């Protein structure tokens, strides 16, 4: 925690020039953790998206979207030179690969999530099409956000593969596969999907896991409810649009009232149309909530990983204990527990001393091996606990800060909606008063 604090203070020192340089980014920078390494050396943005089509692995024609990643060395930016950025194109699947690599390589880190692959929690008006320009744009923002989060992470940002991803278009995939993370990922996946019970769970991690479940359920509930609210609000506004038509038709048969009605009708049209922008803007809030929905998953993965190492440690120590017991039995000849071996011994008499010696030796070797494993696992477990705890605390702070910001932004959005409403109805009122 003390280290954390130091990092924070460093970060606040750098904040001023940091935000100034990042001004070009479309993302609100508050969402990114400061005190970064890579982000201080490099300006990163996902500048644009483009639709492409090509052949996939099985030689089928497919359409996909690629995203332009632009990077510029920070010192050049600070010095006021404005060099052309280095740019390269990446597909969503490559982002996925990068993230998977990071998850496997840094099991104790709450790895930032990617934006959703397919639009979820949509309200009816919003397109669920992956090629929809609005969806692609929101995903572009989300991918940029992901890169900024990773590049500003105290641990992840120093990764060479990440640097490679950002700077060299070709040969990156091969380098990733060379790390052999895939094999690790597979075994990890298998281990994680198996059910097991830890005997001595770490209370802190238990709580954290519980929390991640709650975070997930609350954010998903929130998103669902918001989508429904958006749907209904859309309906309320759009029905008002009908006033526009009827007022204008009605104005045709009126003398003194005609003009007022006619222009009030226009304001009603404007009112109905205003909801499109309002809800489009609100999608940004939904995206922020979605990020934390997916973060919850990442947090749980870290907890699960801890349980797994803890479980492996417990299994290893269990094994060691039973080995030691066997050795004891063999050395003293006392069978403490009922076993098949004991039975055969009793039935067929004691084995030859040489045999016994050999078995004892083998056991000794196994025990030594087991002790090493336990030591190793204990170390791994302790390391995981320590590092994971640090990152979880970092995550928690980041989450509190981000979500608070998000709520403030949401409130600002609501206020602007109210102001728009007051303005439109105010205009309409003027027209009504002229009648």
């Amino acid at each position: 925690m003390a280290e954390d604090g130091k990092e924070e203070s460093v970060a606040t020192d750098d904040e001023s020039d940091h935000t100034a340089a990042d001004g070009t980014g479309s993302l609100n920078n508050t969402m990114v953790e400061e005190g970064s390494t890579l982000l201080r050396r490099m300006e990163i943005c996902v500048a644009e998206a483009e639709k492409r089509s090509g052949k996939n692995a099985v030689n089928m024609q497919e359409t996909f979207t690629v995203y332009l990643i632009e990077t510029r060395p920070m010192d050049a930016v600070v010095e006021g030179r404005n060099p052309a950025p280095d740019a390269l194109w990446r597909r969503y699947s490559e982002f996925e690969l990068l993230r998977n690599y990071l998850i496997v390589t840094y099991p104790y880190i709450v790895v930032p999530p990617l934006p959703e692959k397919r639009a979820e929690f949509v309200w009816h008006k919003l397109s669920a099409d992956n090629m929809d320009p609005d969806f692609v744009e929101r995903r572009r923002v989300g991918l940029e956000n992901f890169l900024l989060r990773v590049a500003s992470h105290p641990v992840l940002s120093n990764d060479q593969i990440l640097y490679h991803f950002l700077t060299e278009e070709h040969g990156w995939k091969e380098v990733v596969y060379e790390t052999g993370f895939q094999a690790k990922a597979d075994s990890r996946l298998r281990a994680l999907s198996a059910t097991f019970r830890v005997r001595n769970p770490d209370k802190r991690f238990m709580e954290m896991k519980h929390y991640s479940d709650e975070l997930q359920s609350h954010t998903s509930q929130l998103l669902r409810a918001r989508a429904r609210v958006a749907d209904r609000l859309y309906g309320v506004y759009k029905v008002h649009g009908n006033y526009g038509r009827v007022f204008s038709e009605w104005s045709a048969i009126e003398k003194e009232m005609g003009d007022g009605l006619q222009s009030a009708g226009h304001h009603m049209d404007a009112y109905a149309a205003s909801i499109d922008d309002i809800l489009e803007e609100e999608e940004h809030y939904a995206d922020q909530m979605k990020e934390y929905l997916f973060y919850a998953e990442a947090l749980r993965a870290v907890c699960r990983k801890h349980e797994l190492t803890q479980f492996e440690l417990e299994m290893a120590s269990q094994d060691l204990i039973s080995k030691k017991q066997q050795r004891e039995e063999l050395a003293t000849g006392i069978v403490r527990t009922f076993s098949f071996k004991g039975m055969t011994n009793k039935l067929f008499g004691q084995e030859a001393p040489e045999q016994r010696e050999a078995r004892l030796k083998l056991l000794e070797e196994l025990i030594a091996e087991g002790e090493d494993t336990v030591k190793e696992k204990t170390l791994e477990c302790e390391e995981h606990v320590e590092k994971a705890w640090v990152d979880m605390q970092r995550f928690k702070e980041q989450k509190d800060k981000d979500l608070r910001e998000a709520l403030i932004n949401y409130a600002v959005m609501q206020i602007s909606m109210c102001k728009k409403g007051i303005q439109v109805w105010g205009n309409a009122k003027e027209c009504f008063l002229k009648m």
Partner: protein
Amino acid sequence: MSVGALKGLASSGQKPITEILHPLSAAEEPLSVTVNVGGDKEAGLTNGTPVETSSPASASSLFNRLQLDDDLEADVRDLYASTETRDLFVTVDDPKKHVSTMETYITYRVSTKTTRIEFDLPEYCVRRRYQDFDWLRIKLEDSQPTHLIPPLPEKFVMKGVVDRFSEEFVETRMKALDKFLKRVADHPVLSFNPHLNAFLSAKDLNKRQGLALLTKVGESVKHVAGGYKLRARPAEFCAMGEYLDTFSQKLGTIDRIAQRILKEQSEYLTELREYGTVYSSWATSEEELQRPLEGVASCVKTCCGALEDQSESMSQDFLPVLREYVLYIESMKNVLRKRDQTQAEYEGRLEAAILRKQEDRTPMPVEVEKCQDKVECFNADLKADWERWQSNKRQDFKQLLTGMADKNINHYEKCQAAWESLITLLQDKQTEDKTSETN
């Protein structure tokens, strides 16, 4: 008074109008004229025009049409009087429920303040039920057939599910009755009607006439009259009819839109409430974010409350006015029909008279001239009422729509204030954090 009403319905009186004499009727000899006119008419009718004019209903209305000369003058006089110095103020309020073994009903307090000499006292306070208002309206319609009588709220609300004794229903009806009575009291002719006088001042309203029968007959008259083709209906009345058709169509659309908005809003409200509870339940599993999330929850709740108020006022203030005008249009159409009928009668007589004139060169009968007068008076009355109605309508809709805008603005203002206070709450906490960090 309820007993009186029941008795009134049972007896089927045939002389409805003479029960209470019109103040201006003394100068004329109405009954004899009526008989005369009726006889002549039957003789003079050609080409199968309706002969129902001999029915008591039309006889009584003819009698009333004879008052028109005087009424017209009164009309012009009072048009100014009513705008400048109003001397009759009525209010309907304080609904009370009465439960007896026979029936359950609501009465409303009708208070009157006036300086008119037609009233014995300057102030009255009586209790009336819906039936009494209904009686008054029918009486007005019968005794002033050339005038536009403001509508009463519907006897039963369309949706059968509405509880007739619910506070909301009674409140809405009370407002509509108040509106009705105020419109009558502000009318330069109707406000002098003796039936209104009786309605406002009589301790016990004596409704002895067979009302149900009378209205039925009256209606059948109207329908048959529609069959006669007028030679030349003045263009202005055609325009009125067309205007009313379009206007009622537009009102219908506005009514549907408003109801749809209410429905959408109530569904939105349901979702919004749930949305708020998601925030408050999330707050329980957070430490740092607990207060911000609770803040959002309470903010959403405030917005729900504001929306609820808005929807309520829409359904209680906005919709009833639309409904009133839909009924008003019906009343207006009724008067237009009656006017056509009068004109038809005149044209029929004129035709017959011309025919006879060609035969035996007798002068134009007096009755035909009287009929012509009637038509002219009717036209004048109708035009005056139309003007008044148009200006009332303009005022009412100006007020109604401005009110709607105000309600919406008010709703947004409440929401805005809530969100603004939330931001201060959230930011305060943040600056607090920042200062503690730097310290």
